[in-house]
């Protein structure tokens, strides 16, 4: 697999010309070697069950928003039917190796999260979104930076930018903004570029995968000049690191769940 990936290796010059996203920036700053495996070597790993569950939950919520937007039936049973169909078709397209009986358990776990959200969401059923799963770009060339790109989960009326998170445990509300600052700042700038208006704030809807699933909503203020400046410095740092081909790993707790653990241990660099 590594030899195959080497054949598709992307040049640093190409990467520097590509748009940047919050996920790329965050990945680079959390572990440069992981960034190298994913975006330079382009190593492809099979989808694991946790990722499949996360995507399925995301799909269910997106389907609910889209249906409300277009005036289609969006009751729990309508969403469940779409969710189950999508679960099957996405597995056909990207197979996941489940253990015996695991698929059904994971599917039920994913649906339980969506079902809980539909019951507990603060979003009124009749509310029409401004945008659902929308890709946006912002030209940052006047700042000497590449194009910024992102996909916003949902924009509520009045310019409230919403992102869905699935988490194993309840989020520490004091740390939520700190951990998501790059993403929210990027989304704020993207929204401004796309609409010519300032976002009114952010909502993070955390779907917590506890035994009894629960929803935690955290609300955050619009992007400040300081946050914007921090994002630009972070992008500059990213560009400098990629240009230097600085692929130094950052060993830590996150390695336990890293899909490139074996490559890292084996020193594929």
């Amino acid at each position, binding site marked *: 697999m590594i030899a195959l990936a080497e054949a598709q290796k992307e040049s640093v010059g190409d990467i520097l010309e590509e748009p940047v996203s919050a*996920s790329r920036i965050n990945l680079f700053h959390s572990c440069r070697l992981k960034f190298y495996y994913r975006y330079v070597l382009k190593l492809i790993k099979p989808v694991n069950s946790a990722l499949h569950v996360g*995507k399925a939950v*995301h*799909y269910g919520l*997106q389907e609910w928003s*889209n249906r409300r*937007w*277009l*005036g289609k039936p969006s009751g729990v049973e309508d969403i469940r039917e779409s969710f189950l169909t999508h679960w099957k078709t996405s597995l056909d397209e990207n197979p996941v190796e489940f253990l015996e009986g695991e698929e059904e358990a994971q599917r039920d776990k994913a649906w339980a999260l969506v079902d809980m959200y539909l019951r507990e969401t603060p979003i009124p059923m009749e509310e*029409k979104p*401004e*945008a*659902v*799963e*929308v*890709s*946006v*770009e912002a*030209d940052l060339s006047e700042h000497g930076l590449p*194009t910024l*790109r992102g*996909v916003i989960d949902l*924009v509520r009326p009045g310019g409230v930018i919403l992102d869905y998170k699935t988490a194993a445990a309840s989020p520490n509300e004091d740390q939520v903004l700190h951990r998501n600052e790059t993403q929210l700042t990027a989304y704020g700038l993207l*929204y401004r*570029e*796309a*609409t*010519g208006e300032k976002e009114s704030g952010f909502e993070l809807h955390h779907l917590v995968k506890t035994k009894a699933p629960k929803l935690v909503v955290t609300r955050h203020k619009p992007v400040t000049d300081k946050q914007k400046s921090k994002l630009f410095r972070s992008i500059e740092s990213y560009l400098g690191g990629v240009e230097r081909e600085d692929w130094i790993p950052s060993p830590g707790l996150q390695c336990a769940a890293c899909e490139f653990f074996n490559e890292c241990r084996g020193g594929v660099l």
Partner: protein
Amino acid sequence: MALTITATVSKKVGKPNYGSEGFTLTVQSEVSNMDQVREESHRLYLLLNESVTQELEGSTDTPSKTGEWPKLVPATPTSRVWRASDKQRDLILKIIDENGVDRGDVESLSLEMFSTSNLQELNRLQASGLIDELLQRYGKKSTRGTTPSGRFNGRTTR
């Protein structure tokens, strides 16, 4: 390859004592493909016709007491200028054209999604949402997805 459109509007109006006054305005604009020619021609004609008529009717601003001309004001969304990006405008028109979609249906969809049937009023965020839905209904396989590769699919709001 960019295509250049040259548009000219010329008008002459009668004046007292058998006089007349005429005004000719010519502008050039570029489009990236033939699909955009009709739309751009229409936009230029409306712009030039309005400007020439206003000049001849004497309704445009004249130099102020300080001798300075007023600054140009960018076109508003109510004119023929799209608020969406050129790429988005081209894609929307292309989907309509290539699939033989009734423009009225697209305007109805826009009304349902954004409470306006005027496609030119859609900002980049809204245009992106409309394009997604048009592709879902009439075009390629949906670009909606949650994987990084599936999300962008070469199409964004710019």
